[in-house]
């Protein structure tokens, strides 16, 4: 590996939605497979991903999401039942393409040593306790993430 090549991947996850939860796990596990270190900092709504039993229940909204293959106007997309419908459709596309479930990617990430950091400040704001979150994660703040990211890292936000 060339010396100037980045050795770390530091990701900030701020959206607790199905579509936005995938890239951090795909990229961080791939990074470790490429002999890099990886960390994901889950903050604001991203913390939802780390809540016990939540990861396979994340949803995708069809509202203000013009890239959804299911073309429906916002006025209809906002009706009750449309978000669950969009979620069922997206999950079925993912299954068909044999993309692992988020819980499987999470397990792979933990096995491979990806650092999963839950944001303490978000926990305080949203009233989330450590026991509400899955086992084996770290709790930390901005400095925890920045210390990791400050050393030869690629940084991304989702």
């Amino acid at each position, binding site marked *: 590996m060339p010396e100037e090549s980045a050795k770390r991947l530091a990701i900030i996850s701020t959206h607790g939605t199905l579509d936005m939860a995938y890239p951090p796990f795909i990229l961080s596990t791939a990074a470790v497979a490429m002999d890099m270190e990886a960390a994901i900092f889950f903050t604001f709504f991203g913390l939802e991903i780390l809540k016990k039993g939540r990861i396979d229940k994340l949803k995708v909204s069809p509202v203000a999401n013009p890239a959804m293959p299911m073309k429906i106007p916002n006025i209809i997309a906002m009706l009750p039942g449309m978000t669950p419908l969009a979620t069922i459709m997206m999950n079925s596309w993912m299954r068909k393409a*044999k993309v*692992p479930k988020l819980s499987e990617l999470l397990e792979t990430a933990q096995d491979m040593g990806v650092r999963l950091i839950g944001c303490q400040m978000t926990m305080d704001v949203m009233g989330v306790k450590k026991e509400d979150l899955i086992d084996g994660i770290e709790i930390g703040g901005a400095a925890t993430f920045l210390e990791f990211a400050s050393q030869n890292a690629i940084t991304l936000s989702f």
Partner: protein
Amino acid sequence: MSDLKADLTLDNSGLSCPMPIIKTKKAMDGMKVGEILKMVATDPGSVSDIQAWVKKTGQELLGQETEGEKFVFYIRKAK
């Protein structure tokens, strides 16, 4: 290419990104330097991904071929 003798064969058929490179990495970790891994995948993205993976990890891609819908890679553990 198929005259290369693989020490281990890993079939990643049906798996999508990022699983082929993750499983390749895990398989390589258990091999000795100099040994050859034959990796089979059906994900078309793996053609580009394996090239990027060997470049970053310092392993050696001896060659690749296509067998129908399958992509076959021969990778030598260089370090």
